[in-house]
């Protein structure tokens, strides 16, 4: 028998019942919920007279629609307030732990899961949110689900699922100086396309991936969904174990060491075969900037907005044309010549402590360009606290950045943090879809260091020339 992949091992360990002509029934170890996609699931549960089977495996936070300005004020938006209140009363009624708006554990769901030690290797993790793929960085099978499936997990702690196919993205060669995890994943999406991972779980492998910190690995896995993949994951190793050790909800002492022994068995076996394998040359990557309206439309900072695809590819030509029109761009314009109005440092992709440090290093002693409005929205209350302990908030504030409370903020613009019509934004988030950050807003996805440099220069610049990455 040939070896098993990480996906095979995770799958086999969680099958409650082999489907036999039906999908397998898979057990879920951790169910994360937030205010936007849970209300209707609780409602369905009530209507059917059902309970939450394992409230102890369910964790709630508020992140999507809450304001990131003064938290002492009531939420001004009626609907957002109703949503947050619904989550509160549901969490209370069903006995679910909630990291509420003023709690020290509050934050973006994909930031607090790992940070508080809920997220551990070898788990199955779901959330009514596509960026659940983030948690795959720990060597767990983590994926987003719809609200009906949220209800299903509430009632049964299981999901009937067909096993996805496996895809090995082998990153070969070293990441050059100044090229970050964000650039790596943008480069991968640029190469395989926004549909490249459809139907698959991507495992990222190779020395450059091994060399990434947990924060960097989370950034990579986070955007797997932008490549169309069901999930992304990275085999657990010492880096993973060191990160988890000592976290509030991680096992302790001998129990932890026993888990480590089990987790050490998870990496794909040497002889394991994948349904698909793609090689990505890390050494050829540069800092990237997206120019269009999906994350596959990327260009290196040294490059330009591309020429339109030929007449023989009408669909792609049409899509590129439409994207350029929306973004207010012409083919051939140098990326460095694009002036920005706003800079957003935040989101579950890039608002962890390491991201803020990288940006602060660029910003230190400099000033935000007078035309630019720039903001930092830490990924969690804890990231915010830790950053303040290091004095990062001072660096950002002195440079002219707005320093906010934790939440999703302008990644999705469901709260008052919204991009104006035709405003151009350098954003560390994950989606540059039309209207994502505000109707008519123009989003360019970049790494934290690149966003920071754009804030200072007032246009995109190659941060490698600033003597830092």
């Amino acid at each position, binding site marked *: 028998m040939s070896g098993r992949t990480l996906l095979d091992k995770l799958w086999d360990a969680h099958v*409650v*019942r082999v489907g036999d*002509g*039906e*999908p397998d*029934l898979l*057990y879920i170890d951790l169910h994360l919920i937030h205010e*936007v*996609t849970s209300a*209707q699931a609780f*409602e*369905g549960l009530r209507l*059917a007279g*059902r309970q939450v*089977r394992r409230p102890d495996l369910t964790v709630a936070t508020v992140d*999507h*629609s809450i304001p990131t300005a003064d938290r002492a004020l009531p939420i001004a*938006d009626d*609907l*957002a307030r109703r*949503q947050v209140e*619904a989550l509160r009363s549901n969490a209370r009624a069903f006995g679910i732990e909630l990291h509420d708006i003023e709690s020290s554990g509050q934050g973006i769901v994909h930031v607090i899961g790992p940070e508080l030690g809920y997220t551990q290797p070898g788990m199955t993790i779901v959330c*009514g*949110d*596509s960026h659940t793929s983030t948690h795959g960085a720990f060597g767990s099978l983590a994926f*987003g*689900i*719809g*609200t*009906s*499936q949220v*209800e299903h997990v509430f*009632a*049964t702690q*299981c999901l*009937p699922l067909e096993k*996805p196919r496996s895809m090995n993205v082998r990153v070969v060669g070293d990441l050059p100086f100044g090229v970050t995890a964000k650039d790596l994943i943008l480069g991968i999406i640029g190469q395989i396309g*926004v*549909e490249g991972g*459809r*139907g698959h779980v991507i495992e990222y492998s190779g020395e450059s991936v091994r060399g990434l910190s947990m924060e960097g690995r989370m950034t990579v896995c986070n955007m797997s*969904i932008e490549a*169309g993949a*069901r999930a992304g994951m990275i085999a657990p190793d010492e880096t993973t174990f060191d990160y988890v050790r000592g976290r509030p909800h991680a096992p302790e002492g001998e*129990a932890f060491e*026993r888990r480590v022994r089990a987790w050490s068995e998870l990496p794909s076996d040497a002889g394991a075969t994948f349904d698909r394998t793609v090689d990505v040359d890390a050494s050829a990557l540069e800092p990237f900037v997206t120019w269009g309206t*999906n994350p596959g439309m990327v260009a290196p900072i040294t490059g330009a907005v591309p020429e339109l695809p030929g007449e023989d590819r009408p*669909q*792609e030509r*049409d*899509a590129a044309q*439409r994207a350029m029109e929306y973004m207010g761009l012409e083919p051939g314009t140098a990326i460095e010549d694009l002036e920005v109005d706003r800079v957003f440092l935040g989101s579950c992709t890039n608002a962890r402590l390491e991201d803020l440090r990288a940006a602060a290093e660029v910003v230190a002693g400099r000033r935000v360009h007078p035309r630019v409005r720039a903001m930092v929205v830490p990924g969690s209350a804890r990231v915010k606290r830790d950053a303040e302990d290091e004095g990062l908030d001072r660096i950002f504030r002195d440079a002219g950045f707005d320093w906010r409370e934790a939440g999703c903020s302008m990644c999705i*613009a*469901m709260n008052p943090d919204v991009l104006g019509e035709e405003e151009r934004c350098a954003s560390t988030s994950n*989606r540059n*879809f*039309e*209207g*994502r950050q505000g*109707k008519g807003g123009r989003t360019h996805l970049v790494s934290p260091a690149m966003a920071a440099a754009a804030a200072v220069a007032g246009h995109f610049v190659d941060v490698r020339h600033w003597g830092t990455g």
Partner: protein
Amino acid sequence: MKPVAFVEGIVAPLERADVDTDQIIPKQFLKRIERTGYGDFLFHDWRRRPDGTLDPQFVLNRAEYAGARILLAGRNFGCGSSREHAAWALADHGFGAVVAPSLADIFRENCFQTGIVPVELPEREVESLVGRARQRPGYRVLVDVAAGTIAGDDGFLARFELDPFRRRRLLEGLDDVGLTLQHDREIAAFEARRRAELEGP
């Protein structure tokens, strides 16, 4: 969920690839805590001009596609956010089937959950349908879930795949959660096994 055996009606062609769920239902409409009432906001930013009036050019606003029940889309339809609101909005607007060369994974699952038939056809066949829908305003097709076919009154006929379990769920309108709950003993046994494993010898 109500059983779905057939979807019959007018075909509306939306000729764009990689349409994400932020376009299908923009986030400003996600703050409701109900499952219904999203139809008016379907494709909001494309359907309405900046002043809020309907854009007569947009396919769903054109008289010939009024009341359409089948949406024809480009590849990778429904990518992006996992919001089931996208499927709810389509259903609420009256759509019973989405036909595309490919549908994003989570969206496809959400269609099943909402009782929308997700139909994946080769690009060529989708293009052929688009051509018909444009040339013959009011063009109708019949999606037959049991047979796995989509047929037009002009002789168009294509087959699509549905796995047998999903097909049965659509046809019988089964309650997914109820089905899983029938395996309660196996779930409990799994939990006991797992607890023993985690606690160790």
